[in-house]
């Protein structure tokens, strides 16, 4: 694993909000075509980590390198170039609710790839909607979609720019178990089809087990355990990781 190319390198990353220290010296690597799951309780700083990765937030100290570039030191133009390589699937899908599904998908495409013809744009949108299994929703408004459909369209919208890294923020939050399984399958399909490296932020252990090559457990602002599911959970010695596992196990 270590010989593979690192696409994300996080070193000693710290972030506070007022008096609250959220990340306290975090170290983590993401390798090419790897699915890494970041687990942790609500408010543990999981989403903060990936928001720093795309420049939505800035760390207080430490280093966040994506494709070898220090994100916090990039100017606006370079940051936007980097963002084109990163797809961010938001917790609540963040679909633009005044636009149809087609317009949602067009929005980043027409603004970033100006040489495409109308035919090419339509083809790309149809292909991606097919790949997430929702071609019939093309003219629907987000308010007409179910939670699971919104997540799928959200993923399709991020894929339209052909990202190399996918960041999934709580992809299964608020969904029923069957839809959760479908979303997990979609995450795996995306990796297979588009050869992406992914970070999946979740507190759902079933999602983590199904989608992750490696797990990283964020507790008290630091990664307390990093490894495969079998390395991290069944034999966990840390009481909090154990209780996290037991709680999810009982609930599933």
């Amino acid at each position: 694993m270590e010989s593979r190319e690192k696409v994300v390198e996080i070193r000693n990353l710290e972030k506070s909000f007022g008096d609250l220290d959220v990340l306290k010296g975090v170290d983590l690597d993401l390798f090419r075509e790897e699915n890494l799951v970041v687990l942790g309780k609500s408010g543990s700083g999981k989403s903060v980590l990936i928001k720093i990765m795309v420049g939505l937030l800035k760390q207080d100290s430490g280093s966040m390198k994506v494709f070898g570039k220090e994100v916090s030191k990039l100017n606006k133009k370079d940051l936007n170039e980097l963002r084109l390589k990163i797809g961010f699937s938001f917790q609540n899908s963040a679909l633009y609710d005044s636009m149809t599904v087609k317009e949602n998908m067009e929005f980043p495409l027409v603004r970033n790839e100006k040489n495409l013809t109308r035919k090419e744009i339509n083809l790309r949108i149809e292909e991606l909607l097919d790949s997430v299994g929702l071609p019939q929703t093309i003219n629907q408004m987000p308010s007409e979609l179910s939670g699971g459909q919104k997540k799928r369209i959200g993923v399709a919208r991020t894929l339209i720019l052909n990202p190399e890294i996918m960041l999934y923020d709580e992809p299964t939050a608020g969904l029923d178990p069957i839809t959760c399984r479908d979303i997990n399958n979609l995450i795996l399909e995306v990796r297979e089809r588009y050869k992406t490296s992914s970070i999946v932020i979740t507190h759902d252990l079933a999602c983590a087990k199904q989608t992750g090559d490696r797990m990283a457990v964020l507790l008290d602002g630091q990664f307390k355990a990093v490894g495969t599911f079998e390395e991290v959970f069944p034999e966990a010695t840390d009481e909090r990781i154990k209780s996290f596992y037991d709680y999810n196990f009982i609930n599933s």
Partner: protein
Amino acid sequence: MAEGSGDRKPLLSKKIDKFFTGLADAWNFVRRFFQEVFMPPYEFREVIHQCYRIGVESLPLISLTGFIVGIVFTNQSRPSLSEFGAASWLPSLISIAVVRAMGPLVTALIAAGKVGSSIGAEIGSMKVTEQIDAMEVSATNPFKFLVVSRVLATTLMIPLLVMYTDFVALMGSFLSVNANEMVSMTTFFVQVFEAITFLDIISSVLKSVLFGFTIGIVGCYKGYNSSKGTEGVGRAANAAVVMAMFLIFIEELLVLQIVNAIRGI
């Protein structure tokens, strides 16, 4: 006493701090607008879409209000003028009042309530549901798409709405004058245009541009900086209306002073 004043000092200092931080934020927001408005890429389609929403969709409300204002103001002014045997001055009085003050002010206040609140709520809800972040991470410029387009649309459309309100209010006034004083439309409008000057029209248009910019920028600023979920969206919409109305009155007062100085009053 000493304890009380000790408690008050940090609170006061916090409030002053908050006020000046807010002022600096607002200034940076306005500055960013002027930086981005001239820089490509231009969101023409969104500007036109917003012009339609702000202009065309406001027409029914503006028409009704303008028309009623014209009739009511005429009917309220008639007794006083009649007392001096000056009822024939009604068209002149109404035209001056409508073009100089009531048209711009009524239109701007209605637009602040209708358009300002809608902009504040829309952008605020996009902010709290991470739609603005989603635009940002897809390497697009949400400020240009959301703020620049809306502020341009309000700045362009409010003056047009003001001219339309002036016309509708004068038509309302004409109906009242025609019914009571038997004045023809030609006579009425000849008196109207004799009473108003070029300075009246120019100051009214410039004032409307200022009102339009204020409504747009305040709505966008409040929406863009909203937080705390749905409650924050409500607050943003409310603050957008209150702040815009407050600024409109201040601007009205300032423009009046400037125009009066030009007139030499």
